[in-house]
């Protein structure tokens, strides 16, 4: 039972994710290089970490989505396995069309790094089952392009299928419908701008993020 952390050229939250998995969740993380064409067979969940990929000079995530490993991640997702994209990972998953919509530059155009209050809108997903419905939680944000966009039809679909998992309590970036995190229609692929791995230890200011990972691990154990 391995948890794959994907590394793209220039990834920088890869170790942060690795440490949380190994030291806080006590599961087995494994780095998977973007040049690989297959995920190791004993991988039970894929995490696309935050930070940057290829410098994100064109559009965040635009180039990473062509990495060789992405094909297998798509198959892995299509088979119903959990895939979590955080920050740049969210951007990559939208660019790869594993999630609807896209992420624009923050409305005020500035990079923003701060502690962020969120509401849990759907606590029934693979990624949120350890939260109470409507619960207010804190996870830091740190992004320049976190302004989620989707058209009205898509937004309606997101609502109909209960795909909006996290919303901002005070919208920091101009995101449509205060969206901070969504899942795909099947509920097994999640993308979110806040960093749960930065809220997984008390000394770093909170553990709400840890519960997000615990949700995934709990589901795995139930299988």
């Amino acid at each position, binding site marked *: 039972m391995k948890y794959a952390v994907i590394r793209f*050229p*220039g990834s*920088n*939250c890869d*170790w*942060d994710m690795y*440490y*949380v998995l190994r030291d806080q969740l006590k599961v087995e993380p494994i780095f998977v290089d973007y040049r690989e064409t297959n995920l190791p067979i004993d991988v039970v969940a894929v995490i696309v970490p935050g*930070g*940057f990929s*290829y*410098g*994100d*000079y064109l559009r965040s995530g635009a180039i990473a989505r062509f990495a060789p490993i992405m094909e297998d991640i798509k198959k892995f997702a299509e088979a119903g396995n959990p895939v979590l994209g955080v920050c740049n990972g969210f951007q990559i998953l939208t660019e790869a069309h594993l999630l609807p919509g896209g992420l624009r530059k923050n409305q005020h155009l*500035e*990079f*923003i*790094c*701060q502690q962020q209050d969120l509401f849990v809108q759907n606590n029934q997903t693979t990624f949120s089952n350890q939260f109470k419905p409507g619960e207010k939680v804190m996870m*830091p944000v*740190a992004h*320049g392009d976190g302004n989620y966009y989707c058209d009205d039809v898509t937004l309606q679909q997101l609502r109909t299928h209960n795909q909006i998992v996290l919303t901002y309590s005070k919208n920091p970036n101009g995101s449509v419908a205060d969206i901070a995190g969504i899942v795909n229609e099947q509920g097994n692929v999640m993308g979110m701008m806040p*960093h749960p*791995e*930065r809220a*997984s*230890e008390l*000394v*770093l*200011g909170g553990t709400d993020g840890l519960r997000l990972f615990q949700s995934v691990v709990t589901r795995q154990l139930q299988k």
Partner: protein
Amino acid sequence: MIELQPREIEEQKLYQQWGLSEAEFDKVQELLGRLPNFTETGLFAAMWSEHCAYKNSKPLLKQFPTTGKNILQGPGEGAGIIDIGDGQAVVFKAESHNHPTAVEPYQGAATGVGGIIRDIFSMGARPIAMLDSLHFGPLDNDHTKYLIDQTVAGIGDYGNCIGIPTVGGEMTFEDVYQGNPLMNGMCVGLLDSVQQQKGAAAGAGNLIFYVGAKTGRDGIQGAIFASAEFNDEQESQRSAVQVGDPFAEKMVMEACLDLIENHADILVGIQDMGAAGLVSSSAEMGAKAGFGMDLNLDLVPQREADMIPYELMLSESQERMLLCIKKGHADEVIELFNQYETEAVEIGTVRDDQQYILHQHDEVVANVDVKALVDEAPVYRKPSSRPARLDKESTGFEPDTSKVAEVLMDLLQQPAIASKESVYHRYDSQVQTNTVVLPGSDAAVIRVRNTDKALAMTTDANPRYLFLDPHKGGQIAVAEAARNIVASGGMPLGITDCLNFGSPEDPEIYYELEQATKGMSEACRQFETPVISGNVSLYNEFNGQAIYPTPMVGMVGLIESMDYVTTQSFKQHGDLVYLVGETKADFNGTEIQKMQMGQIEGQLFDFDLATEAANQQLIQEAIRAGLVNSVHDLAEGGLAVAIAESTFDNEIGVDIKLDMPASWLFSETQSRFIVSVSSELQADFEQLTGAKLIGTTGGQHLAIQTNNSKINLDVTTAKKAWKEALAWQMK
């Protein structure tokens, strides 16, 4: 660019344009035994510039203490190294990028960050934090706002992209920085196994490798340019700006760290290409080891066509490193760097003599003794004279505190005091998930993973104090940094510095430099914090107006247990509040003087290093004994501001009664701390420190009573004003 013949260079005095004096040019001739050619003249001009050779500042830097029991590496390498136990060491250095930032703030600041990061990983250390020190003109000017906005964006974007948290810094706003802003960056790294790297190229036949980005005509003469004053005319004729590529740097960094950690057996030396690019890195590596080298310039990766040797050698293109690799291991290096999508090219070999020989198109284009280039630069002790302003009789400023609450509210909104949140929220301060104390407290704290230790770090300088008294001001700069470290639970380990001053040719400026470094040295001895690295930036003048003497001090402290980590904010209602340290009527050079008079003047107040050290010692002991809930050092704005700042974070009010006149609330007497203590620890704390109880925490109000005044402000209201002031003034 036309390559003049040696005779023409001599006749037309081209060397003067490049910053070499008549006497220096004569010395070059003497060393070579002939006239230098075009390329060689360029090499000497760059290597003998103030920026590379420290020819004006060397004698002053000698005053600094640079050794100590934990100091593994002092000045002289990419960065200094201090042992922190358990086989680990902390590595840090500061750099200025003032001139590039003034010209092109975004890229200037970004490449400043990129450069200082390379200094850290060239030592084999993984960069764990960035800090900055920014000095700009007043915020009533649109160009200044643009400069600040772009500088902050440049610092943030580079650090954010490469994945190094920017965790602290400082900012001042003064007229003198209007035409010559300062951007200083500091990088801190962690060395996990104490095997340090040297920037040396030894062993005849060993290979010189160029790794990283291609060379273009960026920032040619940057080092020379950084050693000249600015004026309006020059604005238009600046060489091409350098553009930062943090993605490229991330790849180069990971590759270099991999090489150092996993292939140490084939690596002889490593150095970054900073100021004066290829020539300074290669010549320094050779000279340090006592070896010469042959470099084939045809092999240097080039971004632009038809570059002449002068351009190739002096370009300051970013994200490049130079390696010396044991012969026979070229393939291993090339393959390793390819793994990181980075180019590694063998461009030369080490010679067994000391000749530094450049080849292009099968011709020798330069042939000089490497020691002449690196070690023979002249050193000057300039004339110095004490500026008259320092001896002007002063009556002593008395603030008007008849409306004391208003004064406090106004002070809280002065840009130097107001919250810097609107700046630091643009920096990713949390990447690497080690930031235990985020920006906004006295020092930032980064834990050392897998240990119970943490590192506290801060950058400080109060240029106003230095302007009124460069000697005491220099002492205070170091003391203030130490105070911030101690308030955060740390033990000061050592400092790095950036000496930002005007032109050393001006005897009064040279005096400032002399006195400031003297004061800093004395303070470093007092706190046992040697100077382990640093940087000098002179000629910071605009249209003849010099900046204030601005020696930025970057200090790192060791927090021996996570239990000692302390922040400035009050933690709970009902705690006792103490003032450690004595308060006097010290108003010259203060924030309130500037606010009420529009300028600073007079004699700077007294400062005593021994008192400072004693008070810091008390705080350290109280923290270690577990007696305190918060500690905040007193700085700009004095006591009232420090009390207010302590209430903001958790919005816990306070009720304070002081036996002093209202004006003293704003005195900036040094060596003081505000401490909050749980009531059950009252006796223990008082016995240890003898400090004066001045009030209790609780409620929603900021209530401060003196002999002749009362402040009663709503904490939330005061906080809002303080928090939003800077963003408002930037609009």
